[in-house]
């Protein structure tokens, strides 16, 4: 959908205005997003080395296993990570094909 | 309505539901869809986690609107669950696309495939494909149908005058629909009248019941007939003919000498109101204040000696003249209630030792006992009472002796635990020195306010003992010299499974709940009972008070054990269903009925001979092209679509709409056809 310059400008203005109104939550969420990105980077790094189970990733990254599981679950939901098989009592996860490159 | 003219116009949408895993855990739904996509006329074949969800239904709507789909086949749960759901989807989309909702076929992939072939996913998937292929073959030949719309009689018949029947009648009347209530016995109220105070709130049972009865009988839209039973039914939802047979009361308005008449009546019989613990005369009243405010003659026992006439005969008639009358009603509410379980002779010593009685009897005993400081039974002061739970309930097949009808009462009767503890509390209040032992398997005080009754009993020195279901206690005569005549031997798991002997002057059996005997009602209304003998609902969550027969709903303990609150709620819910059905003044019947092709019919009448339903198919003189001939004619409202006439017709002139012979042929051919070839799944 293409916007006219005018429309685009107006949108930006509204966004800015709403952002100002919600400064506090926006800042908090931004900080949260940063942490999320750091953790994701670590997890993805591990997965690029091949399919892994949660405790392996946790050990390699030093992240708590339950946090790793949560992020894997989130990435799986939005098709960034796929489950590739079972290894003993754990499932193995890998990067989804499209995101690997 | 633009309808496809040739096969070429048939555009089928096929949908395979995962059923939230119920189907997809066994059947490879994707493979099924892929196979079906290759078939002629199939325009789309899709899968979804749950087709019946709004999103799933939206798939169908979109395909109808955007892909010009004009036949829909869904493979999902049983048709009984969601066939209607999907027909409504088509009807909705059809408003824009002009599509008839009967251009739909439902294939049961859950009950017929995944649930029964759990161990064999590959074969299950093949079977699913075949069933779907058959459905598609049928869909190619579907034709638009119209439901039959008929006027509905805004009048309901409630069967049973216990709290459930009364509550249902009241709600229906308040909603503005006429009600007739028939009660088999001469008095209204059912079992609630036999209670004194009720859990959970300690309310006066007969006072609360009396208030309800007053409201019901005062309502201008309600007619009550006591001593009346249903003896015949014909017709269909919205338009049933009910035949009612009413015994005479023997006593009419203006009779004023009840006390004297009862005094002189020589016939004395056990009083059922007190569960046989007292007696009454052949002219009787259930309890003071019973409705109607007139005694009745007990025809089973009155020997017409005429003594009562000698007191003052005005208003008495000692001949029973049963009368029958017909009512035109739109719906039935079955509220025939329960009966307490009657233990077998010897079961926990019942009927062998006079000190063993049932909980209903105990409630009456307490009602009859005076204000004295001691509870007396058989002239003895009762010091130790043992209350035994689950008598006639929660029986285990293979462990407990089946009932005379071969059934094992394997259900929980739901009210006895709380009723027993409610009783224990009353006993404690009235007889502070009594020793009370409560012998149970589990204590099920589940309802709002029930746990308080349990806690109170425990705080009030009621002793609890606990047995295992397969090791029920024994009631035995006490050895000579014991102060109590009986003992209850129980392997008590609150004291490490030790065998304890509990002394008992009175043993109270918390007997369970059985449905009233209603075989006649079942066969008249063509409804059914479950394996627990209670009347069966269509589905506990989707249609919890409806039976499989349109226009027949259930209220109260006829359907299963319930306390008063639950019976009232169920009755009101039943009233709401009646209002849905009759409130609009018309009912819609499904079009799946027989249809006669008069070009082929030669009026042999074989169909009429085999049809089991009154006036469903008849021979009538029909004129066709100036010629008159006898032909079979179907009355859709009376036809159930069973198809017996189809098989009887020598000329293949009859079909059941929506299930024609040609459609069956096509389905059979599809079932026998080879499976579509697929690149094998990974």
């Amino acid at each position, binding site marked *: 959908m293409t916007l006219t310059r005018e429309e685009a400008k107006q949108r930006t203005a509204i966004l800015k205005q709403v952002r100002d109104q919600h400064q506090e939550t926006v800042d908090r969420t931004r900080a949260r997003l940063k942490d999320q990105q750091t953790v994701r980077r670590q997890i993805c790094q591990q997965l690029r080395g091949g399919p892994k189970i949660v405790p392996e990733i946790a050990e390699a990254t030093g992240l708590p296993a339950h946090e790793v599981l949560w992020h894997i679950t989130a990435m799986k939901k939005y098709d960034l990570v796929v489950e590739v098989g079972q290894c003993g009592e754990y499932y193995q996860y890998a990067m989804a094909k499209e995101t690997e490159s | 309505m633009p309808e496809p003219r040739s096969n070429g116009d048939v555009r089928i949408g096929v949908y395979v539901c995962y059923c939230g895993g119920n189907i997809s855990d066994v059947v490879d739904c994707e493979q099924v869809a892929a196979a079906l996509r290759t078939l002629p006329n199939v325009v789309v074949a899709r899968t979804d986690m749950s087709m019946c969800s709004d999103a799933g239904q939206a798939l169908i709507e979109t395909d109808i609107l955007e892909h010009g789909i004009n036949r829909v086949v869904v493979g999902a749960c049983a048709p009984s669950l969601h066939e209607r759901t999907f027909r409504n989807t088509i009807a909705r989309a059809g408003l824009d696309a002009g599509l008839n909702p009967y251009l739909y076929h439902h294939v049961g992939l859950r009950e017929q495939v995944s649930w029964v072939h759990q161990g064999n996913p590959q074969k299950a998937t093949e079977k699913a494909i075949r069933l779907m292929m058959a459905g598609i073959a049928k869909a190619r030949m579907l034709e638009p149908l119209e439901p039959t719309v008929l006027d509905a009689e805004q009048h309901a018949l409630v069967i049973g005058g216990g709290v459930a029947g009364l509550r249902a009648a009241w709600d229906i009347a308040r909603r503005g629909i006429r009600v007739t209530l028939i009660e088999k016995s001469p008095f209204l109220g059912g079992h609630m009248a036999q209670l004194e105070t009720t859990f959970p709130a300690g309310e006066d049972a007969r006072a609360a019941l009396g208030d309800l009865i007053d409201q019901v009988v005062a309502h201008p839209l309600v007619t009550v007939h006591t001593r009346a039973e249903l003896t015949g039914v014909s017709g269909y939802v919205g338009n049933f003919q009910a035949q009612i047979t009413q015994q005479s009361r023997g006593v009419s308005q203006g009779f004023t000498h009840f006390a004297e008449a009862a005094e002189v009546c020589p016939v004395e019989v056990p009083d059922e109101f007190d569960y046989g613990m007292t007696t009454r005369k052949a002219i009787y009243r259930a309890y003071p204040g019973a409705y109607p405010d007139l005694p009745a003659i007990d025809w089973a026992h009155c020997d017409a000696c005429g003594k009562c006439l000698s007191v003052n005969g005005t208003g008495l008639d000692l001949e029973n003249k049963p009368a029958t009358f017909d009512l035109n009603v739109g719906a039935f509410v079955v509220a025939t209630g329960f009966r307490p379980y009657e233990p077998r002779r010897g079961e926990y010593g019942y009927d062998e030792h006079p000190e063993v009685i049932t909980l209903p009897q105990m409630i009456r005993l307490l009602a009859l006992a005076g204000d004295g400081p001691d509870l007396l039974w058989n002239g003895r002061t009762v010091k130790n009472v043992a209350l035994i739970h689950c008598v006639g309930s929660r029986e285990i097949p293979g462990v407990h002796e089946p009932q005379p009808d071969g059934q094992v009462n394997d259900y929980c009767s739901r009210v006895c635990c709380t009723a027993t503890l409610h009783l224990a509390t009353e006993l404690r209040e009235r007889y502070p020195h009594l020793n009370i032992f409560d012998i149970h398997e589990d204590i099920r005080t589940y309802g709002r306010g029930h746990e308080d009754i349990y806690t109170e009993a425990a705080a009030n020195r009621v002793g609890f003992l606990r047995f295992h279901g397969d090791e029920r206690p024994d009631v035995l005569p006490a050895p000579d010299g014991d102060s109590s005549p009986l003992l209850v031997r129980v392997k008590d798991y609150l004291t490490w499974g030790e065998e304890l002997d509990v002394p008992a002057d009175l043993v109270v059996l918390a007997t369970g709940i059985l449905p009233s005997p209603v075989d006649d009602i079942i066969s008249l209304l063509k409804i059914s009972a479950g394996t627990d003998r209670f009347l069966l609902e269509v589905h506990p969550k989707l249609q919890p008070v409806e039976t499989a027969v349109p226009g027949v709903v259930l209220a109260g303990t006829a359907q299963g054990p319930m306390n008063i*609150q639950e019976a009232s709620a169920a009755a009101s*819910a039943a009233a*709401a269903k009646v209002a849905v059905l009759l409130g609009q003044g018309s009912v819609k019947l499904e079009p799946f009925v027989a249809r006669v092709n008069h070009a082929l019919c030669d009026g042999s009448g074989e169909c009429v001979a085999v049809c089991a339903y009154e006036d469903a198919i008849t021979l009538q003189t029909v004129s066709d092209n100036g010629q008159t001939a006898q032909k079979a004619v179907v009355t859709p409202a009376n036809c159930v679509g069973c198809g017996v006439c189809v098989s009887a017709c020598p000329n293949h002139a009859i079909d059941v709409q929506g299930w024609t012979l040609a459609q069956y042929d096509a389905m059979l051919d599809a079932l026998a056809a080879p499976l579509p070839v697929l690149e094998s799944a990974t």
Partner: protein
Amino acid sequence: MTVKNVHVDVLVVGGGIAGMQSALDLADQGYRVALVEKEPSIGGKMIMLSKVFPTLDCCSCITTPKMSAVAHHDNIELLTYCDVQAIGDRPGGGFVIDVVQKPRYVDIDTCTGCRQCEYVCPIDLPSQFDRELGAVRAIRVPFSTAVPQKAFLDIDNCILCGKCQQACPVEAIDFAQQPETFTVEAGAIILATGFELTPAGAKAEYGAGELLNVVDALVMERLLAPTGPYGHVLRPSDGKEPDSIAYVQCAGSRDKTLGVEYCSRVCCMYAIKQAMLLSGALPLADITIYYMDIRTFGKGHEQFYQNAKAMGIEFVKGKVARITEDEDKNPVVRVELIEDGSKVVERAHDLVVLSVGMLPGYNPKSLYGVPVADDGFAAIPAPNIRPSVTPKPGIFVTGAAAGPMDIVDSIVLAGAAAAEAAAYLEEVRTPSPQRAAIEEAVHA
């Protein structure tokens, strides 16, 4: 979006199974109904469940068609993501209700539910729907079977980057949306506001909600659901498939120390149900249920219990005194075995499920003038004969707002509340001499 003022016969508050059923039972009779739900989707707790006892139907097979029917019914006005703000009496009977439509920041008429916004949103949040085990985005369709299937933006967890707006193919996103107030006029009200669960931290003895592998039963529902977060039953601490699972019954009910003395009615059955489903999902796992009494009182429930026993699920009568955790985060249950000489033992499991209770949810006192009883649920003056009638004329109650109850009982009571409301409306329209007496008797 335009929000108009609404005139209906009955306002139903709460779109769980009870509220939906009351709305349908009235709408099918021809009454006009408005259903107001505070969340962005209807469905209540039931839509979160896996399969439901006693029939083991898949939960969405029962719930989603009802949700769809509510959304499409000609006589039902569905008001999601709305709060009731004030209620006044309407002259001549009935109520005038002020309702505020909370901003979704998405135009509900334009949104097609395509979820493209959700896919581009960079923020992952713990999903309340998945009991925090899974993730959702700041802008999202609430869950896969939500009704309406429309996105909404959780502005408190948004960085306002505008990516969703760029991605939306139909220009539905509107950051300038403001709360809008409108009025609903109704002749009667049905409260169907449901229940809450025992909070995770309620019992210090059970780890105060700190132990990762001690979860509540609603978490297990999500783990078992086909749409669940992991797609398998895994334990939350590390994703291990549990081998040994224990249920602690009455965790939050029949417990004086929590002030919850009543029985929550559903926990025995849902625990047995979950145990059965688990033995299907994890055929090798050992499943133990620690209980005080098994209360399978409903129609078909006792038979369900006996089947579970026959399947090999272990029922242990015992009081669980404490739950701790070993170094592998395995929960260790300290239990007094009542049938074994009250011996106290410690048993380690992979996962412990607390059969938490049903607590009162919304308190209708201040807004609706409906008082609550000692147990916190709506007061019902004549519970036996009129189980859905509150002390306030014209206001009725159903479902778990009227006390703990399962789905079947909620659906039945919903029908009863519909019948009461319909009768109330009819009697207001054609007053009968009885009415005054009835009112007096019930509300005395």
